[in-house]
């Protein structure tokens, strides 16, 4: 989907950098606090109370994270493997086709895929996972391929000139140099999947979307607001975590 902008620290983390890192969680903390205060100030009826309690919400959050995490792991493994296969000298011609498909593929509605798989297969967790993987696959594949292709040709040539086999070049040069791309790909996949997982409620796979949906269907604004805000907070928090991890895990010198 989209590559992430934003401040990224390279190398050692100094005091001002630390502050920038803390910006987002602090902001999210305030939002949660505001949300809590808002809910406390409401007179909740019994229906609302059944939804807006710690247990229920917490379960939905866990479900949401599970959906996002599992689908991300699967899609990254598949996309990176496919990406490697499709960037070999023999298969290079495929790139433009993939890139073209991926561009159009962004238009395929995630809700459409979720419902499609639910009808064709079944409702529940695993069909939803398949849909999530299918939805984000092309984007991550494209990003991986572009990233691998950006590995400097002359570096590879030098390695081959030194007598490295193609496999050795792949594992010792290309992949390590592509780690930043892969990390970015993981982050992107997470964001996309957190977003799509919000819709998983429609196919009985749970998640915070349940809260939002109930809020709409029952016409209860507090529920709707809590559901929407919590989902947003979760998404931004996971993105922040992924960003920090990306910076920490990025190899030095790149």
């Amino acid at each position, binding site marked *: *989907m*989209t590559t*992430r*902008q*934003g*401040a990224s620290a390279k190398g050692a983390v100094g005091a001002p950098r630390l502050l920038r890192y803390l910006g987002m969680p602090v902001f999210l903390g305030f939002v949660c606090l505001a949300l809590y205060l808002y809910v406390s100030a409401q007179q909740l009826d019994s229906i609302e109370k059944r939804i807006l309690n710690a247990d229920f919400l917490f379960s939905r959050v866990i479900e949401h994270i599970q959906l996002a995490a599992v689908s991300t792991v699967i899609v990254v493994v598949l996309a990176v493997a496919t990406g490697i296969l499709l960037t070999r000298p023999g298969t290079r011609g495929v790139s433009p086709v993939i890139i073209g498909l991926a*561009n*159009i593929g*962004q*238009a*395929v*509605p*995630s*809700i*459409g*895929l979720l*419902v*499609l798989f*639910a*009808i*064709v297969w079944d409702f529940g967790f695993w069909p939803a996972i398949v849909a999530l993987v299918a939805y984000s696959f092309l984007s991550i594949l494209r990003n991986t391929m572009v990233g691998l292709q950006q590995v400097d040709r002359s570096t590879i040539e030098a390695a081959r000139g030194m007598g490295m086999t193609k496999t050795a070049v792949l594992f010792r040069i290309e992949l390590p140099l592509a780690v930043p791309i892969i990390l970015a790909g993981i982050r992107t996949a997470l*964001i996309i999947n*957190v*977003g*799509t*997982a*919000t*819709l998983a409620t*429609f*196919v009985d796979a749970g998640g*915070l*979307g349940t809260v*939002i*949906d109930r*809020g*709409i269907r029952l016409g209860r*604004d507090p529920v*709707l*607001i809590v*559901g*929407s*805000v919590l*989902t*947003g907070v979760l*998404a*931004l928090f996971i*993105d922040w975590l992924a960003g920090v991890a990306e910076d920490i895990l990025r190899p030095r010198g790149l």
Partner: protein
Amino acid sequence: MGGFLEYLSLNWDHVVELAIGHAIVVAISLAIDVVIGVSLGVLVFRRERAANVALAITSTFLTIPSFALFGIFIPIFGLGYPPTVVALVMYGLLPILRNTVAGLRSVDPAVAESAQGMGMNASQRLLRIELPLAWPVIIAGVRVSTMLLMGIAAIAAIVGGPGLGEDIFSGLARVGSVIALDLVLGGILGIVVLALLFDTFFNVLGKLTTSRGIRD
């Protein structure tokens, strides 16, 4: 397959009507995005701090799940068009803003300097030199936004908005019936076809409006 085609022929008008609704809401949101995105891009591309802030904020929009965004707008904007358009505009902004900034920054400094040296004032430089040269990159951003909005607009049906999402949710509601799959497929394929049409349109538009001197 045969069943789907039968469905299509029987419900053609309905699908087309929804498709038109889908296309219109995306087009309106895109138009607003281009106005805001390009204007904002022009304002901030020379100032690194401001540009970073603008880009960070717009990319936050994209991080927030679309369903949550649609949802939170209901108490504020109600149902139907308003929440749909506001949400779509927020989503489509980043690619256009980002590409406008990148495109304007990529103008050869020697070209900008000679334009200034010849006595062009700032707005003449912007309109005659910088924007035309950044145009191919900006159009590429518009295409990305279009694809994004096409898919996200499907969710609008939940908030009573227009478009092919309606059929997808209808199909969901009628699971178990024969027509359910047809409805969903119709929705998905309709969106994909619309996306292809829009993309082709922008592709051609881009080529036509880009000077031969800078087309690769």
